[in-house]
């Protein structure tokens, strides 16, 4: 296998306040290989966005935020870099497409000017060249009449178009890694599919890796090659997308899938995961998921010993789970049975 483009080792992020310390990310290992699409899934507050923000050095560097571990981009540790070096990498080697397109464009600048800014940070371009490239980028992301749209202010853009414009800014400098942080959550369902198409095309054109942060499993199934499931700041399961969807080996993943609506199928009622994600200031001891887990059933090992991520089987290379008892998991039907038992 080739060397990973981005390799995160034992990344920990803590937010400290006077009252308490919150561990948002607790030791994440993650490799992203050239050309692949990695889906990072988890509930709100599971640490998926913070992991990527920390990797890009976008968390404020103050005493209140403690980031430790390694983030290697082509072997260079981003966490050790000076702000100036990091700035040269952001946007050129790795670009983050932010979450909310409605607020990410500066309302007082024309979209074309903002595109030009993104371009000129890393490339020497004349005004004319930048304009031509800007229009080309807008065309790439499927904005109609790009010449006209280039000179408009963001208020003349719809939500979907703004997200397209953000993607255009993201791919402006042909980054090797694109990170899309919930690129479709703020958009209509009908527009979501279009945006994902745009993202996929943009990725193909630039040959970039894509890290897709989302809580939408449908999106992951559609887009990703590999899936990483996060819970309470840790990776609980990772593996090839088909394997994970066919044979999930962590009760949290199984729970996520069971809580996915499946249009009108009465044999598969919606089964929510009981309880709430833990308070990151007080993550339960042992397996962080055990209070909500149908498999734990009060077993001591679950509440005492933190399960480590380990290979599920020799046959499934790369499929790893952080559950002491993943051998007991067979399928989602079993989960709903267990959950119903637990509820009754």
């Amino acid at each position, binding site marked *: 296998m080739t060397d990973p483009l981005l390799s995160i080792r034992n990344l920990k992020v803590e937010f400290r306040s006077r009252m308490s310390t919150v561990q948002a990310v607790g030791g994440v290992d993650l490799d992203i290989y050239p050309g692949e699409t990695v889906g990072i899934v988890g509930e709100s507050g599971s640490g998926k966005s913070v992991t990527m923000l920390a990797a890009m050095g976008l968390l404020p560097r103050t005493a209140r935020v403690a980031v430790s571990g390694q983030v290697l981009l082509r072997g260079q540790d981003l966490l050790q870099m000076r702000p100036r070096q990091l700035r040269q990498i*952001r946007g050129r080697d790795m670009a983050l497409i932010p979450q909310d397109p409605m607020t990410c464009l500066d*309302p007082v600048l024309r979209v074309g000017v903002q595109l030009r800014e993104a371009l000129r940070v890393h490339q020497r371009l004349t005004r004319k060249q930048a304009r031509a490239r800007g229009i080309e980028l807008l065309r790439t992301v499927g904005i109609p009449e790009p010449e006209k749209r280039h000179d408009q202010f963001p208020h003349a853009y719809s939500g979907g178009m703004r997200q397209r414009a953000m993607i255009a800014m993201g791919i402006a400098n042909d980054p090797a890694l694109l990170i899309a942080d919930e690129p479709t959550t703020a958009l209509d369902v009908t527009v979501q599919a279009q945006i994902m198409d745009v993202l996929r095309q943009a990725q193909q054109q630039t040959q970039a890796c894509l890290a897709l942060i989302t809580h939408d499993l449908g999106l992951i199934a559609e887009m990703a090659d590999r899936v990483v499931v996060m819970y309470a700041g840790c990776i609980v399961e990772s593996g090839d997308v088909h394997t994970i969807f066919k044979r999930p080996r962590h009760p949290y993943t199984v729970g996520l899938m069971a809580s996915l609506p499946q249009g009108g199928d009465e044999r598969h009622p919606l089964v929510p995961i009981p309880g709430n994600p833990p308070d990151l200031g007080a993550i339960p001891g042992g397996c962080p998921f055990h209070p909500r887990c149908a498999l734990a059933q009060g077993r001591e090992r679950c509440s005492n010993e933190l399960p480590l991520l380990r290979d599920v089987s020799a046959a499934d290379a790369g499929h790893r789970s952080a559950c002491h008892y993943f051998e007991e998991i067979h399928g989602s039907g079993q989960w709903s049975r267990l959950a119903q038992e637990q509820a009754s």
Partner: protein
Amino acid sequence: MTGMTSATQQDPAAGAPAPMADDDAPAAPQDRFLRRFVSNRAATAGAIVLAILIVMALAAPWLSSWDPTLQDLSQAFQKPSAAHWLGTDNLGRDVLARIMYGGRYTLLIGVIAVAIAAAIGVPIGLISGYYGASVDMVIQRGADILLSFNAFLLALILVAVLGVGMQSVTIAAGIGVMPQFIRIARAEALSIRETDYVAAAVNFGSGSGRIILRHVLPNALTPVIVYATLNIGTTILVAAGLGFLGLGVQPPTPEWGSMLGEARSYIFHAPMQMTFPGLAIFLAVLSFNLMGDGLRDALDPELR
């Protein structure tokens, strides 16, 4: 007077070669702004009064046949008459002519002083607010010291250093109101710094200087413009006050403040001589304030 909208369009960066193509946009923001401004009667009145004062100042040689510095002691202390509409002063000079010519100095000092205040105060304030931490601390404590003097006192100290004359009065009045521009710009930078578009610019690799220039400054302009307009009244008062004390523009130049100062000795004998320059200052300050309020309401109704 199109305020923020024109300011953003004059932004050299926004001068894209193609014509503006906003035809399917709701309503051009500048139209909405103009409509809101005109519908505000007080602001319109202020603008009209100000326009009259400006025209009088600019067209003084054509509007009045009197030389504002021509003395004629035999005609001193005349009451308003057909020849001298506002009467004459202690040296027999035509008061109306002096007020018209004086507007050139007083209004100009007011505007330039505010321009100086904004040109120095806004960048400092933006840097203070955007970088925060120790930079902010140092700048804000400096501003605190300046703010502990009132604008007039600060200007008075500066005149003591710079000497009398139009130039130093303008600078002094400008520096006098500058600390408040630091505060306003800082407050804006503090909130703009947290916006998603600044975060997006950071993550596409923009440096701090570029972000301040491209994103923070244009977005901070609205309140700065409103505040600047409201402050022209203050700088006019400061400059006139210095003139009144004899520290401003020197006689025989007809600046409104120094006219007041000259008339002071004759306040019981010829109250008219003092009334008209005072009225002129009052009208100028009032019209700038009304306009400033109107601009604020028209540019950003939420600021009200």
